[in-house]
Structures are given as C-alpha cells and as structure tokens.
C-alpha cells in the first residue's frame, strides 16, 4: 500500500502514459508462480512452432542423424506434389461439409431442447452424451452402423429397403469422406448445442412472448429475434467445431481408412503429414506441409472472423 501512495504523490508529469502502470508490482512472485507453467508451455508449444519452421527447410530422418539444411527444396516439392492438392481439397471439403451442418443442426437442436419440462435434464443428456466418446471409439461404433460385418449395417439395411444398392461407404471414392463427416458431426454436435443453448437462454422470454403476441410466426421469430441474438455465439461455435474437425480429420481417417482411402479419397492434409513423417521418415517435408496446414487453419479463422464482422455490420 505504501507504494501506491508514493506513486499517487508523484507530480503528474512523471506519471505519463507509459508510467501509468499498476502501482503494486509482483514481478518476482509472478515469475516464480508462472514459471513452471510458462516454461513447459515454451518448451512444448512455443519452441515447436519455431522449430517447425526451421525443420521445414531441412531434411531430417531420425535414423540418419540431425536435420540437414536444404533451403526451399521442401516447398518446391510441396508445390509439385499432386497429392498435396488432393489433400488440401479433402481437408477443405471435410471442414466445410462438417462445420456448416454442425452449426445449423446445433442451433436447431438447441432451440428444440430450450424448453422446460420435468425430465428436460434427462432428455438433454441424450443430446450431450456423445461428447464423452473418443473419435477412436465412435469410429468403430459407426463402422458397423455404416456397413461392416457379415450382414449389412443399419444404414445400408435401411437404404436397401428402398430397393437401392447401398454404397460401400469407406471404400467408395465418393462417399468415404462424407461418411467420416457424419461421424465427426455427430461428435461435434454436443458441444455446439451446449454453446447455442447458453446463448438462447440469454434471450429474455418476454421478448419472444411479445413478438408472438404481435403475430410473429415461428420462422419470423427465428429470423428476427433468435438468430440476431445468437449470432455472436456462432463464431465461437464455428471455431470450436473447426478445431474438433481438425482432430477428426486425422483420427477418423487413420482408424477407418488407414491407407487414406481409395485413390486418396480420404487423405486429409494432417493424415498426409503423418504418413510422410512416421511412415516414410520424411520429417522435413512433413514440417513444410505442417506450415501449409497452419496457414489453412489461420486462413479459416481469419475468414470466419471476416464473415462475422461483415455480418454484424450489415445486421
């Protein structure tokens, strides 16, 4: 407290904008207390980001010793590698056809369960419980639902009841990626629904009642009241979904289509990175691909942000 009064007593001139820091300083204690956290964070998060950039200019194979500088060779290779284009395309498709349905369905589900009745807690649990599942476990549960086993899976059985020959989902070049998207959407919905539900519950009931009395139908209420009120949450829902699909784009691919699909149909960029590094030992090349991956995620985040800002301005 004495420090505080000292600063307050200083002439105004010396308390310029730069000096107007909080009077009490806890530098030493803060350093000791934050130290372990930040040290570990630096070693395993900050340094790898920098090291990744460095590795992308080298060839490195664990068995042949330390990384060797090769300049831009990995990047030249990257631009001439036809699979990179395919993998980027698959990644973008996987994200778009995953994140957009997740956002839309989650808003619908949140509106659906934003109702009060005695067992609402139990019913909501039905929606949320997939959040406890890993990609690995869900992958296998869904594998049987889609096709596998000696008989048909449920999905294909239903399709065949309509007299249509069901696709061989995971082997198909057309349906494999959408099938993985379905699983990832199912896994991403709980968290997205929770976030939207929280946003919906911040809308005062009186507002919606007033609109209903004024003759606004359900569609009109969604468009004019609910959507504007939950829009700020949409950016968060989309970001969380995007990160979840980033994880899914490796886990599901590696477990359900361990070769990356027929004709690279499910080879996402992350899966390709993993293959290059841990299957073929091309760690330097994989690091260059990872730089591309970060650029794509960064680009997606910037795009989301821009979309959000533009929407807000217009609305």
């Amino acid at each position, binding site marked *: 407290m004495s420090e505080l009064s000292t600063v307050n007593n200083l002439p105004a001139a010396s308390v310029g904008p730069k000096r107007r820091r909080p009077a009490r300083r806890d530098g030493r204690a803060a350093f000791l207390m934050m130290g*372990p956290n930040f040290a570990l964070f630096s070693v395993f*998060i900050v340094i790898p980001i920098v090291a990744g950039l460095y590795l992308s200019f080298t060839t490195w194979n664990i068995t042949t010793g330390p990384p060797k500088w090769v300049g831009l060779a990995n990047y030249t290779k990257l631009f001439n590698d036809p699979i990179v284009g395919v993998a980027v395309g698959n990644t973008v498709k996987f994200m778009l056809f995953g994140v957009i349905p997740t956002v839309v369905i989650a808003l619908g589900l949140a509106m659906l369960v934003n109702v009060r009745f005695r067992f609402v807690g139990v019913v909501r649990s*039905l929606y949320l*419980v997939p959040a406890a599942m*890993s990609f690995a476990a869900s992958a296998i549960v869904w594998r049987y639902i889609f096709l596998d086993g000696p008989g048909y899976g449920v999905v294909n059985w239903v399709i065949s009841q309509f007299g249509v020959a069901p696709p061989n989902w995971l082997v198909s070049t057309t349906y494999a990626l959408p099938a993985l998207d379905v699983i990832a959407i199912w896994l991403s919905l709980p968290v997205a629904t929770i976030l939207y539900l929280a946003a919906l*519950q911040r809308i005062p009931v009186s507002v919606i009642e007033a609109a209903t009395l004024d003759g606004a139908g359900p569609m009109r209420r969604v468009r004019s009241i609910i959507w504007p009120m939950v829009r700020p949450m949409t950016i968060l829902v989309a970001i969380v979904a995007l990160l979840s699909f980033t994880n899914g784009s490796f886990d599901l691919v590696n477990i359900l289509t361990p070769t990356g699909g027929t004709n690279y149909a499910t080879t996402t960029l992350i899966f390709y990175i993993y293959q290059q590094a841990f299957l073929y030992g091309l760690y330097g090349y994989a690091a260059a691909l990872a730089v591309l991956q970060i650029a794509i995620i960064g680009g997606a985040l910037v795009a989301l942000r821009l979309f959000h800002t533009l929407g807000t301005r217009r609305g």
Partner: protein
Amino acid sequence: MIRTSKITHAVRVLFATLVGLLMAAPLFYMITNSLMTTSQTSDLTPQIIPDSLHFSNYSDAVSGVTQVIYSRSFINSVIFTFFVVLLQWMLCVSGGLVIAKMRFRSRGVITALLAVSLFIPILTTLIPTFFVTLKIGIINTYPGLIFPIVAQTGFGTLLFRQYISQIPDELFDAARIDGANWWTILRRMVIPLARPATGAYVAISVLTAWNMYLWPLVAAQSGNLEVLTQTLANLGNQTFGGTHPQNIVYAAIVIVTLPMIIVFLCVQPYFIRGLTGSGVE
C-alpha cells in the same frame, strides 16, 4: 389459446425426446449389440434387441482367446489421464492467479500467447513437438507421453484467470495486509474459492486426455505404453478383415467408454459451465 399452447408444448417435448433418442441411438445400438451372440450380430437384418443378455461378452473381451483389451493399456490410460489432469491443473490454477491478480510487465504478452495457442492444435505442431521430445530424450517414456500434453496450458490458465478475476480485489488486499504471501493466498483462498472452476476444468480435461489418440500414437510407440484409444484403433483396423466378432468389439468399446459416459453424466453441469462460462437452466 391455453389449450393450443399446452398441445404445442406436449408436441415439442415429444419431438425433443425423439430427436434425443435418435442422437443417442448409436450408443444404444453399441450397448445392445455388445450383449448379443455373434450369430445375432451377423444376422443379415440388423438386430436391435438382444435375444438374451450375454454379459459373458464383457469377460470375453478382457480375457481368454477372444481377449482384445489388456489391463496394461487400461492402466496406461489411467496413468496418462491422471497425471495430465493433475499436473496441468496445478500449473493452470497458479497461472490463472498470476494473470488475473498479479501485476508484472509481460502479463499482456503471456496472456496473448496462451490465447493464440488455443487455435494451434497439437496436430499442426506434431512433427516439431516430436522433434523436441526426441531431443530431450523422453520419447517412449511416460514423461514424454505426459509432459507435452500437460504443456497445453492455454485453455486451463485462461479458464482460471476468468474465474479468479471475478474474486474481489479487496479480498486479496486484505490477505496481503494480513501478511499472507501469494503462495498462501493460492492455497488458502484461491483454490477453495475456485472450486467450481476446478470442476469445469477437470470435467473437460479428463475427457480430452482419456480420448486423446494422435500424441500417444506418436510418443508411445512401444507396446508397453499403449493407451486405450490405440487399442480401439487397432481393433478398428483388424475388424476390417473381420478378425474379431462384432459383439466382442462392441463389448470392448463399452468397457472403455462406459467409465467416461458415467463420469460425463455426473459432471455434466461442470462441463457445461466450463464451456459457456455460465450454467444452462
């Protein structure tokens, strides 16, 4: 008017319940199939209800010739999850206090770095993280499995910062005047007061750690360190050729996921609070 709205309400409740059952259907399907005989699961028409309850599938999944889950990977998953959550919690609650209430020069920079890290999943830094861990010499050891994940302190630290910054400054000033140092404040005041934040943090991190797949796949290449997600993933690959019967595989998944489903149902309010920063009514 009142009559219509009552009917509307009933229809909504019914519809919400039906959709909920549909959402959870894959889980029910997994559980019922895990109790069937092999011949029933391989029936050409998908079966929903078991003829009789074959709980023996569960013991078959963990023992005998049909064994697919080994206690070693179960123990590894428990060790991994326990230490990741415990160590990371210690770092995050103290880090949260530092950023929320202590004054020092680089506070803004550190907060920004932690926030940015939330958008960089370990997948994207997989190669260099592997490189660093290898250089330190702890690949294929428990520390190598655990510490790079513990290091992802961004989410937890910011969660605790958020919560701790809502504790009034006066409480901290009073404690300081009484001569308490920051460690005492952390132990005696912040940790007890931040119990709801700890609940939210633990709920989310336990699930994340238990379900993690890629890092263990890379950092634990020796079978001794295998965790359950790897076991399941291998089952997935092998069942492609139909090596294991579906009912045994489903029983195995139930054994692995049921603990987490139970945990999740118990801590659901904390989980929701951790995500939304508030509860859901």
